[in-house]
């Protein structure tokens, strides 16, 4: 109980003390408590670490906080690793983009590959907000992790991973999207059984389409789109129609729409589900200005 109180209080103390004095006097205590037998003590250390990171300089964070994090992400207790995953965005916010890019990102990828499913889930769920602090030039390094997590055994991990894939796809070079993402997403769709995952998968495909423009159709064939629209779930079909609108509007190409999408899109008019027909009706007026441009 005393050690828990100290672990919890260290963070608050860091707000009051001068950093240099705090580092000299308190960091050794933090290091000891981060190796405590009780995982509840180690969990409380993490909250304190976040508070410390806010007041420390870049150099102090690098010298004192980062080494402790490196050690703690391999903690034997999954609760501790989950706590770190859930605190990661706050840490990135506290430490800034440079430290995030150079240190935190590498550490975080370990959590994305954690053997414990709950840890991977927490890391993937927090990845979306964490990405805001990562420089876009670093996004290509995240591709292998997204590709692995897109095939995770836990459906919710796959859902979150596709959400993250959607975000990074919009900022990747076209070559990376073309060679590494699109083909994998299309292949995964064929074997995916969970509808919620399929919906996010199509959103990720949509992001790829927005980035690639007309080059999208060097990989995604008409047969692929036809297969997507044969899905039994109307929510998945709705997402496909949304993808068609988004990609067409973003490329501002009526030729792209007329050649590749038109017949597929207008098939919404005869879809058996009214929600699809209503949805299509809302999308069409949005698309018309781009279809009328020559």
């Amino acid at each position: 109980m005393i050690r828990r109180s100290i672990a919890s209080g260290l963070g608050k103390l860091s707000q009051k003390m001068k950093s240099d004095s705090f580092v000299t006097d308190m960091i050794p205590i933090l290091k000891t408590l981060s190796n405590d037998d009780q995982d509840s003590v180690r969990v409380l250390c993490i909250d304190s670490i976040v508070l410390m990171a806010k007041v420390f300089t870049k150099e102090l964070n690098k010298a004192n906080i980062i080494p402790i994090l490196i050690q703690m992400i391999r903690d034997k207790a999954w609760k501790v690793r989950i706590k770190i995953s859930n605190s990661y965005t706050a840490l990135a916010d506290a430490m800034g983009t440079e430290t995030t890019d150079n240190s935190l990102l590498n550490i975080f990828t370990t959590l994305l590959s954690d053997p414990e499913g709950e840890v991977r889930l927490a890391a993937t769920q927090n990845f979306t907000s964490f990405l805001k602090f990562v420089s876009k030039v670093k996004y290509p390094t995240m591709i292998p992790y997204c590709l692995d997590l897109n095939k995770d055994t836990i459906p919710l991990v796959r859902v979150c991973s596709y959400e993250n894939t959607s975000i990074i796809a919009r900022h990747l070079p076209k070559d990376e999207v073309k060679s590494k993402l699109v083909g994998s997403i299309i292949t995964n769709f064929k074997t995916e059984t969970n509808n919620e995952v399929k919906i996010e998968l199509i959103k990720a495909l949509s992001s790829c389409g927005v980035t690639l423009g007309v080059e999208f159709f060097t990989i995604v064939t008409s047969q692929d789109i036809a297969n997507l629209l044969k899905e039994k779930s109307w929510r998945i079909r709705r997402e496909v129609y949304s993808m068609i609108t988004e990609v067409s509007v973003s490329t501002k190409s009526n030729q792209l729409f007329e050649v590749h999408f038109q017949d597929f899109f207008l098939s919404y008019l005869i879809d058996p589900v009214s929600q699809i027909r209503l949805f299509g009706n809302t999308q069409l007026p949005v698309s018309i200005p781009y279809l009328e441009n020559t």
Partner: protein
Amino acid sequence: MSWVSNVLIPRLQKIKSSESSYLRRISIAYLHEKLITHYTKELQGVCVPELINELKNGVANVRLVTLKVLRSIFDKVDESFRQSIKSNCQALMSDSDVDVKQMAQAIMAL
């Protein structure tokens, strides 16, 4: 609005001529409403006649939804189209369906 006139409207007409389900005709009526709402000047000449055609549909629900759509776009369209809407609604004031009759009367009262 060449794409709408040359591609969309013919596609809608084809669906209506081959389509047995009244539900899809209703969806098309709502689409006309959206098109007129967004592009009144450009598309009233194309969409209003299509809607007026549907007032003769054998299914009361189709007639009713069409009247509702015409009521919603009435104030947006030009005077000539308003006259056309009213003259075509007149016959429905004695429609066999009570709801259709009432909606037609509401439009005539505008």
